[in-house]
Every structure is written in C-alpha cells, then in structure tokens.
C-alpha cells in the first residue's frame, strides 16, 4: 500500500507544486478561485480522456504517439508561461501599486490569469494522465483490496496537495510589494524547466537528434531520485544528467523571456502607441 501511495505522490507532486505557485502568484486577484478550480477541473477531465485513449495514442506514429502529445502539451504550457512572465514583469509595478492601495489588484485580474489557468490545466493533464493510468492498472492487475487501494491513492494525493499548500503558504508570507517579483521568478524558472522537459521529449521520441549526450553527471552528488532531487526537478527542472539540448532549451528560455521583457519595457518607456494603450492610468 505504501508503495502505491508513494507512486501517486510522485506523480501528483509536480502539478501540485505548480498549482501552489500559481495560486500564490494570483493572490488577491478577482475570480481567482473559480479560474483555478476551472483549470484543475479541465486538467482532470483531460487526464481521464488521455488515459482512456492511451492504448491508441501509444501505438500512433510508430510508437511515439505519447511523445507527440507530450511535445504538444509542453509547447503550449511553455508559451503560456513565457507570455505570462513578459506581461507581468512589464506591469508588475502597477499591479503591486494597486495591490498596496486596494489590498488587491482587481484590475490586473481581468487579464493575467488566463494564460496561467491554461498552464494549470496542462500541468494537471500531463501529470494526471500518468496517475490515472497507474491507478487503472491497479484495478485490473493486483489482488489488493479496493479499500486499501483507494486509501493508498488518497494518501498519495494528500501528500502532493500538502506540498502544494506548503509552497503556497510559504510564498504568501512574502510582502505584497515583492510578491509579483518573487512569484514571477518562480514561474520563469518553471518555464525553463518545461523547456528542458520538452527537449527531452523531442530526443526520446527521436524527432530531434542533436546534442543528446549527457553534458555532466551529478547523480552521485545529488541523485534525481533523492527527495531533494525530486523537489528540485519539480521546481527548477533539475536533472542529474541533462543533455546538451536540454541545457540549450533551459538557458534559451531564460534569455528569450528576459530579453523580451526588456524590449517591451523599453517600448513602454519610449511611449510606443501600442504599449501606451496597454498601460492603465499611467499618470
């Protein structure tokens, strides 16, 4: 039973941490609760559908169908997070000003969460599908009793949710005027981690054959399967043996999002008409 709970915990960890960070990043925004719940719900429905079609998807495209689906999900999630990072960091000042004035930045809530909510749905979808498949396998394969199985699954899920809650409450202690900067840094690193996973999926499926060898090996120093390794993998994309392409994707994401943010800021300062229109109540 404990082994089952542990697997469910590991599978749900990434999505739970992600939801925790997004919840902290959107604290005080109008309608956050329903957006978040909607994202999670859509992700769960998607995960059930994906798991139900796993046999068919797996056999597609000569056995790489699952990777193709993964590549699509990761690309979409990366785009959402990158867009959010650029948007928030160019409006963070106004948002935090309003947050201080009103105790919440309601206005920003009209625009920001959408990209994040789609990203939440995608994270739940990807991690959830694996959990559903595993649990479905349990019901057909093993002799363990139903009650034991259900409690193991719930225990694992509770563990994941507890860690998500922990990071949420941890981030909630950050002072309001720093909150956007801090959560945005977390989300930028998550975007880079997703880019690295995308590079791995491309290599695993054979779609890309470039810089596939491991660049370094820290598996003795910090094994990927150790608790710290697992946590760092979920939060920052840690891999003990990353390929060259993974590194390029990781660093490339940090650079591209960073430079794009600077460019948008520069245009705002030079009174670019489009940027000006986006700027609420500049004076």
């Amino acid at each position: 039973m404990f082994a089952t709970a542990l697997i469910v915990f590991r599978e749900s960890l990434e999505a739970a941490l992600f939801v925790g960070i997004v919840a902290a990043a959107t604290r005080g925004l109008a309608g956050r609760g329903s957006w978040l719940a909607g994202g999670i719900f859509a992700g769960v429905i998607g995960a059930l559908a994906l798991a139900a079609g796993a046999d068919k998807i797996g056999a597609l495209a000569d056995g790489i169908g699952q990777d193709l689906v993964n590549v699509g999900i990761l690309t979409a999630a990366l785009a959402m997070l990158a867009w959010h990072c650029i948007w928030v960091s160019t409006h963070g000042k106004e948002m935090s000003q309003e947050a201080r004035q009103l105790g919440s930045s309601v206005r920003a809530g009209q625009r920001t969460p959408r990209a994040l909510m789609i990203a939440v749905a995608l994270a739940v979808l990807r991690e959830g599908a694996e959990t559903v498949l595993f649990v479905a396998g349990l019901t057909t394969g093993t002799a363990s009793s139903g009650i034991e199985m259900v409690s193991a699954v719930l225990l694992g899920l509770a563990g994941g949710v507890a860690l998500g809650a922990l990071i949420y409450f941890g981030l909630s202690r950050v002072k309001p005027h720093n909150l956007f900067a801090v959560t945005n840094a977390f989300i930028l690193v998550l975007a880079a981690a997703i880019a690295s996973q995308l590079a791995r999926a491309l290599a695993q499926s054979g779609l890309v054959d470039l810089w596939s060898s491991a660049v370094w090996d820290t598996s003795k120093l910090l094994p990927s399967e150790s608790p710290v390794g697992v946590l760092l993998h979920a939060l920052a994309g840690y891999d003990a043996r990353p390929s060259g392409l993974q590194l390029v994707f990781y660093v490339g994401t940090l650079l591209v999002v960073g430079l794009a943010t600077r460019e948008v800021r520069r245009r705002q300062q030079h009174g670019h008409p489009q940027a000006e229109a986006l700027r609420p109540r500049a004076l």
Partner: protein
Amino acid sequence: MNLLSTSGRALRVAVGAAALLACGIALAEPEATLVIKNHRFDPAELKVPAGQRVKLTVHNQDATPEEFESHKLNREKVVPPGAKVVVYIGPLTKGSYEFWGEYNEATAKGVVIAE
C-alpha cells in the same frame, strides 16, 4: 525586414541540414527490443553499442500498464498494456545504465550496458 529574410533563410538551411543529418543517422541506427512480461524485463541485461543513438522498442505483454524509467538514461515513458512503444536512448558513453518499471519496481529491473 532584410535581416528577417536572411535569418529566415539561415533557419531553413539549418532545418534542412538537420533533417539530412537525422536521415543519415536513421539509416545506420542500431535497434534493440525489451519485452515486459510478468512485471519483468527480458532481457534484464541489454547490450547496446556506445557512442550511437539506439532505437529501443519496449513491448509490454502484461495486462497492466508499465512506466519505463531510468534516471541514468534520462528517460521515462508509459507503456500501455499490450503496446509497443519506441524510446530513443543515447548516444551513451561506455558503462551500465539501470532502468526499471516504475509501477512494479520490486520485480521490473534491468540494465543497459553500452560497450
């Protein structure tokens, strides 16, 4: 504009070259097969050439799903019951690379040996 079209051309050339390269490698690519049965891998010790990308086919003959996972190979992929999935691994340096089935870790264990 000029800059854009130049970089566009460069991109096309790069993509074309990468595609050619991929095809060239695909022709001479070594392949290997792993079978999952009764929550065990067969062979449990799989020899592959070092320094080359290997096309690994994993065939799950059990009635339950399995997840092929290896931190050392940096790979993880679900294999539905009865399915054959493909996982490209490497190029690997000489050495041994443990892998396991995440859903049945007690029995599903194996190692890739690159030589």
